[in-house]
């Protein structure tokens, strides 16, 4: 049966799967209108503490809350939350609280420019963050880590103060894009419970929002001269036609806006949404969007590059490049490594797989069409690599927050209110974390192979196996690269050429 038809049939019938919003305590809390703010405020407070410690605390990364929480706990918890539930970081995103406050006084007047309504701005920022992370050794620099957090708050507030709806989340935020792609692997999605109810709905509050003059609810801002009682989806995802978690921040505005209580947080098969083709609300057809292919490529190959930068061969490579080129500064050498890892290598590998596919399928489609179609299959493996990498740092170091917090209190107040720092606290031993890393990579590989198989079967039903083969090879190469990296001893250096 055609997968699209299967998907339509599946979504048309009422969802009977497990719904988090129907649970007694969690469901009641999440359906409370201010639950998001209640989650954002603690994260905002933590962010303020991190910023303060970044600028005024010890400039030693292992003893600084900003460096520790950003590069160990935050990154680890984001991917683990996605694996366990969904896009919980965007749900509780502290960067948006200043914007919410600002929108009480300022109504953004402009629409996001049409020529920027794509993923390119976020892709550029994503690569930029990966690059400066390596170039300036952000993991070892509390002050710049604090500056990055402040910059993030400023960017989110600035963009959304000027432009309507959730322009920052949808088009700018690199963390958001990372979370959107990652959450295609999540076990939960925000989805319509019964499509039959939507068929008879005339108000479309889930996308339009609820307008009203009630001063109690007009605090959300103003739109078109009318106060907004409850926002609809600001990321342009119309629930009845929404597919999966792409571009979904789990803000639950659609849940609050739906007058029929017909939107839930339902369990689903992770990665299944990657096999769905055709138009999606707010996204059009992702298999026809090259910006999505580029985003997925940066997400997947960036995961391998980011992990590669943690091991000693990268320093041998940098020294070799320095010797060959005579360069004594890092940025052009690092730039060359990035250009190879994020552009040349993916282009060669994906173009070769596309050429093989075209030959096997005896198709006249362009290589770009084929790459766009199969790029989705890279996401599970990419997520597996991020999970293995960030999971390593988190699981081996999650308890270090205890002595660092104790030390911060002691240094700030001069009194050891939380006791003397227990520096012996670390995390799980590497011997336990290593099998977990391999497990994450293995799950990613299985997911990628499964997605590629479904794509091959629906696009080339007569030659599925022949078309499937090159993509399995691509996944195998990427998996082997990641597994090799994870088997190398970690070697974190902030120095280059003795500088």
């Amino acid at each position, binding site marked *: 049966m055609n997968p699209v038809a299967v998907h339509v049939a599946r979504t048309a019938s009422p969802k009977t799967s497990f719904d988090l919003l129907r649970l007694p305590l969690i469901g009641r809390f999440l359906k409370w209108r201010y639950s998001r703010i209640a989650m954002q405020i603690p994260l905002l407070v933590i962010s303020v503490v991190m910023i303060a410690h970044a*600028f005024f605390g010890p400039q030693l990364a292992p003893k600084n809350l900003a460096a520790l929480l950003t590069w160990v706990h935050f990154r680890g918890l984001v991917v683990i939350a996605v694996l366990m539930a969904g896009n919980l970081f965007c749900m509780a995103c502290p960067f948006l609280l200043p914007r919410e406050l600002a929108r009480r006084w300022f109504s953004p007047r402009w629409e996001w420019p049409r020529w920027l309504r794509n993923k390119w701005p976020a892709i550029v920022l994503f690569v930029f963050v990966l690059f400066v992370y390596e170039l300036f050794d952000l993991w070892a620099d509390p002050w710049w880590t604090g500056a990055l957090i402040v910059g993030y708050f400023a960017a989110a507030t600035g963009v959304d103060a000027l432009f309507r709806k959730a322009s920052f989340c949808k088009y700018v935020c690199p963390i958001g894009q990372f979370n959107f792609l990652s959450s295609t692997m999540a076990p939960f999605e925000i989805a319509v419970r019964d499509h039959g109810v939507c068929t008879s709905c005339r108000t479309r509050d889930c996308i339009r929002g609820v307008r009203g003059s009630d001063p109690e609810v007009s605090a959300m801002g103003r739109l078109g001269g009318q106060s907004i009682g409850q926002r609809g989806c600001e990321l342009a995802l119309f629930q009845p036609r929404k597919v999966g978690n792409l571009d979904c921040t789990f803000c639950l505005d659609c849940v609050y806006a739906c007058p029929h209580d017909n939107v839930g947080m339902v369990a689903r098969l992770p990665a299944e949404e990657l096999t769905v083709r055709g138009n999606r609300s707010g996204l059009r057809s992702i298999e026809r969007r090259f910006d999505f292919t580029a985003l997925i490529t940066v997400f997947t190959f960036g995961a391998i590059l980011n992990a590669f930068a943690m091991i*000693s061969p990268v320093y041998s490579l940098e020294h070799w490049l320095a010797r060959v080129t005579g360069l004594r500064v890092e940025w052009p050498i690092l730039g060359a490594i990035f250009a190879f890892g994020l552009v040349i290598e993916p282009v060669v590998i994906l173009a070769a797989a596309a050429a093989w596919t075209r030959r096997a399928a005896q198709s006249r489609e362009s290589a770009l069409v084929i790459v766009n179609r199969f790029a989705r299959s890279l996401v599970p493996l990419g997520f597996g690599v991020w999970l293995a990498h960030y999971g390593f740092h988190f699981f081996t170091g999650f308890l270090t927050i205890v002595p660092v917090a104790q030390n911060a209190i002691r240094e700030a107040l001069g009194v050891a209110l939380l006791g003397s720092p227990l520096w012996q606290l670390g995390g799980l031993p590497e011997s336990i974390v290593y099998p977990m890393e391999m497990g994450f990579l293995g799950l990613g590989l299985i997911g990628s192979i499964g997605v590629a198989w479904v794509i091959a079967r629906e696009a080339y039903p007569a030659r599925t196996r022949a078309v499937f083969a090159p993509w399995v090879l691509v996944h195998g190469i990427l998996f082997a690269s990641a597994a090799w990296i994870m088997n190398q001893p970690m070697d974190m250096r902030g120095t280059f050429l003795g500088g």
Partner: protein
Amino acid sequence: MLLVRLVSAAGDGVSTGPTRIASTANPNAGFEMQRITKSAGVLLCTFALWGCRPADSEPSQANVRLDFDPSPPVVGDAGVRLTLSDAAGKPLYGGKVVLEGNMNHAGMKPSFAELREVEPGRHVGTLKFTMGGDWFIIVTANMPDGSRIERKVEVQGVRVP
């Protein structure tokens, strides 16, 4: 660095009281602004508190020399030789010396070593490097006269065998 210094200087005791800003556009705006300024005040106090923390005592008269065997160190146990002397090169003896080794990446457990004095001002011991990469060693010497010498020593490029 200049910016770091400027920010640090601002934290050293500069604080401002909340300012009330009236607004006629929104009847609740005054109240909201009051809340914001209160929050900003708390934030500033927090910053100031951090800025007013006791300065690290760092006697400038002492020289600290740290050598490793092998050099550069390799992951695993490394022999440490430490020499303490005053500005004239005269040994500073009788101190209790402790090393704390940290990687420059957050989230790694530090490594500690207590050195023993083998001759006046010369201390030896063993420090475990648990991972390859860049480390820094915090040397703390508590001297018999009650003074404390503290130094941060960079150890770049600990090799993976």
